[in-house]
């Protein structure tokens, strides 16, 4: 399986950090009030970040 591709829509991100906290493989980190994918290769496509992002700011592409 290919590594899922994370899409972060920066203009929607409000910096709540929910995605960072619930990511089981520590892919994400806060950079001030904006989320960054610092270890994208570790993404397992579990969708925890996308499902809990209240702001439509993260999409996980698994295709």
């Amino acid at each position, binding site marked *: 399986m290919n590594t899922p591709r994370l899409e972060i829509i920066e203009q929607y991100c409000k910096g*709540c950090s929910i995605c960072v906290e619930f990511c089981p493989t520590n892919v994400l980190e806060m950079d001030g009030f904006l989320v960054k994918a610092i270890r994208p290769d570790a993404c397992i496509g579990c969708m925890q970040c996308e499902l809990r992002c209240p702001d439509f700011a993260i999409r996980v592409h698994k295709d």
Partner: protein
Amino acid sequence: MAFDYDKYLRPGKLPHIWCPGCGHGIVFKGLLRAIDACELEKNRTAIVSGIGCASRLPGYVDFNTLHTAHGRAAAFATGIKMAQPDMNVLVVGGDGDGVAIGGNHFIHACRRNIDMTYVILNNFIYGMTGGQFSPCTPTGDKASTTPYGNPDPTFDISKLAIGAGATFVARTTAYHATQIDKLIAEGIRHKGMAIIEVLDDCPTTYGRRNKFRSVVDMMKRFKELAVPVAKAATMSKEELEGKIVTGILHREERPEYCEQYAEVVKRAQNL
């Protein structure tokens, strides 16, 4: 494939107005996944709300959308459904809107068992006006109008709905993201009044005043307190104290209101 939310969003409306960490966005996304799962036709679907943070939701979605007055969503929705029984009618709103100022409309919509799906986002507070206590604010908690702790007892929205006659009642939390769309979809498919109560976080006006360090703390608390309904059945009343029972709490078959009215029409026309 990532879920294509854009299919249902009105272009150019995001970012939405909700605060950082507000769970409304999580419930919103669950609602869209549920609508998609049920393949609701946009033209034949109305989404109705009252006033408050949650009630801003309809403005973002490409359906027939109606942002009504405070508390009145269920009553407007009843008029739509009665006039057009073939339309899918959904209601969204908060706890203060739904069971304080809109309490009478809420219980009577449940009693009629009119076929609609009401997603009530219970974040225990009036958020839009700055954090006054609602009928769902836990006793003892702080709000801008209960600076010494809330003296009021609370409503259990799901129990209220069951008592009032809703034929599908389910509860989950903003933490349980995948359960949100499953329960809403079940509610949409149910013929009759479906209430889906989603316990939600308001970090800005509730969390901060009540010793939650962050929105993540609030989400984790939902995770800790949630007890699936099947497990809850094996637990004592004492063990369930303070817990949040999640899942489908009540489901029954009872004549639906518009169908009952269709019978009235037949009798009036001697058919």
